[in-house]
Every structure is written in structure tokens, then in C-alpha cells.
């Protein structure tokens, strides 16, 4: 499997939001009516009909200047994806060729288990359709050797699409050029994401970024431990009852006396 990833370099991003629009167009998503909230960031969060957004953030540098900080938020396409682990219907799956996380909406039953499991809080539920929505890395495009729509639309080269090794090499080089607190984000989490960032500042500076995303402990406990335990427990009581019936036997009133209470053991 040649792993292909999407790389976002926020130092090259001008927040033109061409990617956001291209995403809407390719995936045929309607725009929602929003209210001005004192920021260019719009809509304010990911939505069932918005698979990606550009975050707009003001921040003060150490010299006291106020600067823009941009960040593209979308499904990170984890290698160890909690959403795939919890999905009961197989609607969420790993793309066998590329390792991205696809979503077959025909199979989605709208149980929302992925919504609560995702360490990046990406999947969004739409109560009108009773289904979950998220970026599938434009699976219809990438499985036909095309780059995702957002990458295609990016005019500045902030978004790139390519083999994982090459992208990581490129990212490393860029981090070296930027210096300071610049770092790669994504390679060290959840087995490595298939959408990674080069961040020009330390990740702690970014608003609403997940600082240490990992498969939630609750998911591990639930799927790796309690699920087998439930079978063991059910089997145990069924077998135990059967054994009790054979070894100890049912409890019957004493036939002879009719008064004395005795168990009818079959030792």
C-alpha cells in the first residue's frame, strides 16, 4: 500500500478559502446561513454540510505584533481511526489502497458512535437525514488518481498531495526553513494521520487544535475489553446454570414430610 497524505503548510496559506469552496462544490454541499460573529471564520465550526473550514485566529507575537494564524480543519484520516473501530455498520472504513478513512453513507445508520469516539471531533450528525458526514478525502477523486478538490484549488501551494515519505521529507525541510517553534503535526498521533500540518508556531498557540489526540481510553475499554467480556459473562452464566442443574439439581419440596425444606442434591 502506497500511503498518500495531504499536507497543509499554514505559513503558505492566505486563507483565501478556495479549498473550502472547492470542497463544497465537489461534494455538492449547500451553504448554511450564518451570522457575523466578529471573525472571518465562517462557518464557525465543521458542520454536516461543511467538511472543512479555515480557522482564523488573531495572535500576538513575542514582539507584540498582532498577526493572523490560519489552520485548515478537516478529518485527519487516522491510521488507527477510533471512528472505524466503533462503527457498527461498516459505513466507516479504511481505504485499502491509500489508508484514508472513507464513509459509505448508504450503510450509515446514524448511531452517532463515531461522533463521540473521534479524538478530533470531526464527524457531524445531521438529524434531517439521520446520518453522519465528514471529509472522505474526496474518495471519488483519489481512487481515480486525482488529488482531493481542496488541494486542486489551492493557489499558493499550502496544500499538497503525495506519497507519505516524500511529503514528510518536504515537511521536515519546510520546518527547517521556518525555524523557531515550527513543527509537523499529525505524524506522531493515532498511528500517523493521512492529513498533516506544517505549523509555523508551536501547536499550543493554535485555538481549538487537539493538543494530544489519541484513541480515547473509553473506546479501548469498550471495544477491546468489555466486548469480549460480555460474551464471556453471558457464556459463563449459561454454562454455570446448566452445570448447576446437572450437579446440584432443581430445588423441590421434600416429598416425604411435605413440611421440611430440603434441597434435593444429587451428590
Amino acid at each position, binding site marked *: 500500500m502506497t500511503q498518500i497524505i495531504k499536507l497543509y503548510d499554514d505559513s503558505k496559506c492566505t486563507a483565501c478559502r478556495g479549498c473550502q469552496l472547492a470542497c463544497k462544490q465537489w461534494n455538492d454541499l449547500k451553504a448554511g446561513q450564518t451570522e457575523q460573529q466578529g471573525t472571518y471564520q465562517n462557518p464557525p465550526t465543521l458542520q454536516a454540510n461543511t467538511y472543512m473550514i479555515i480557522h482564523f485566529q488573531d495572535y500576538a507575537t513575542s514582539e507584540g505584533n498582532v498577526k493572523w494564524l490560519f489552520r485548515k480543519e478537516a478529518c485527519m484520516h487516522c491510521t488507527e481511526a477510533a471512528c472505524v473501530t466503533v462503527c*457498527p455498520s461498516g459505513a466507516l472504513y479504511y481505504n485499502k489502497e491509500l489508508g484514508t478513512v472513507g464513509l459509505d453513507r448508504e450503510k450509515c445508520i446514524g448511531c452517532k458512535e463515531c461522533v*463521540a469516539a473521534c479524538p478530533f471531533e470531526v464527524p457531524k450528525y445531521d438529524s434531517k437525514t439521520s446520518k453522519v458526514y465528514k471529509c472522505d478525502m474526496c474518495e471519488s477523486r483519489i481512487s481515480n488518481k486525482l488529488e482531493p478538490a481542496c488541494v486542486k484549488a489551492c493557489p499558493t501551494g499550502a496544500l499538497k498531495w503525495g506519497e507519505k515519505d516524500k511529503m514528510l521529507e518536504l515537511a521536515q525541510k519546510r520546518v527547517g526553513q521556518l525555524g523557531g517553534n515550527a513543527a509537523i503535526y499529525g505524524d506522531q498521533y493515532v498511528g500517523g494521520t493521512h492529513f498533516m500540518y506544517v505549523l509555523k508556531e508551536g501547536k499550543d498557540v493554535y485555538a481549538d487544535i487537539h493538543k494530544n489526540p489519541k484513541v480515547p481510553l473509553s473506546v479501548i475499554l469498550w471495544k477491546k475489553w*468489555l466486548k469480549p467480556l460480555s460474551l464471556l459473562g453471558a457464556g459463563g452464566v449459561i454454562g454455570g446454570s446448566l452445570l448447576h442443574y446437572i450437579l446440584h439439581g432443581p430445588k423441590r419440596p421434600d416429598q416425604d414430610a411435605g413440611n421440611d*425444606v430440603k*434441597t434435593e*442434591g444429587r451428590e
Partner: protein
Amino acid sequence: MKPKKGMVKVTSLYERVVHWVLAISCLLLCYTGLGMMFESLNFLGIIIGGLKGLKIVHNFTAIIFTVSLILAIKMWWREAGIFVFPEDIDWVLAAGGYLWHVDKVPETGKYNPGQKAFFLVVALFGAMMVVTGFFMWLQPGFLPMEALRWMYPLHVFGFVVIFAFFFIHLYLGTIGNPGSVQAMISGYMEKPVLKMLHPKWLKEMEHEGTLVVYKGEDKKKA
């Protein structure tokens, strides 16, 4: 099954209806829940339109379960929800005569400590299933994500506990104690069985004169 002459009335119609609504909704929840939890059991959904059907039946059966659970707790907590000392301890120490030979099983009243434990497990874990289940159903928005995530393992843990107790209840209420299942069908039990299982209660009823004995149908029985 119709009661026979001489059998003793042990449950009211209301008790039996609440019991069976709770029991059937609980079983349906187990069935649909298992069908969703295990991929190998997905086929359980075929008769109700696949996984989506399982989800819908699970969610709406939960409402029936919730209502019957509330009625059951209201109806039984006084009798089955409170342990009485020291007689209940004696019974537990003898395991009710179920696990090894006991010459004289300590006498218990209407509900023995095993039945009380079952009631309490159903009441407490049932309530936990209702609470966790409704957060899972109505999410997101009611709980912070970190708390919401824990509803899922708690829900499965509740299943593990309730299923174990349910099956023991089924066994002891049927073939494990021949004659006791009648209490939840016709509402009557054979006196010797009642005397063996709930001697103190029988004495109480005899003493207070509240014992109702089935006299048989006038036409058939002389």
C-alpha cells in the same frame, strides 16, 4: 396455564403485566443491542430491515423499558429493595441452599436476598442503562465530549451485569425451582413450593388471614 385447586395466590395481575412488559422489552433490547454490537450477529436485524431497523427498535423499545422499569421499582422497592438483618445474612451464608447441601435453609419472607439482589441490580443498572442510553441517543450537546465518551463503555458494562443476572433469574424462576414459574403466569403457586421458597411469608399470610387459596372453577370441581 390455569391454577389448580389449593394453589396460593402470590402475585396480582398488575404485577405480572409490569413484569412481562419489563422482561420482554429488556430481552428485545438485548437482542437488538447484540445485533448492533457484534458484526457476526448483524443477521439478527434482517427481519426488521437491517442495522437501521435494529437501531430504531432499540431506541423506541428503550422508552417502554424506561416506563416499565419505573413502574417496577415503584411497585417492588419496599418488598424487594431492602435487606433485612440478620436473617438475610444467614440466608446468604447458606447460599440459600442452592450451592451445597443445607439441612435447614434459613427462612426468608416474600423475597429472599438473592431475589432482592436481582431486583437491585435491575433497578440500579437498568437506571444506568436508561441514563447512558438516552445520552447516546440524544447526543451531541447534553454532555461534554469527555463525559459522553464514557456513556458507551458504561452501557456495555450494564449489559454484561444485567444479562448475567437475567439468565440466573430465568434459570431459578423456571427449571431451577420447579413450580415457581406459575407465580408469573397464573399468579398462583403450589403451597409446598411456596412453603419451601418463602416460608416466612406464607406464615405471615396465614397469620394475618390474607392467604388466598384457589378454590377451583365451580362447574368442574366439586
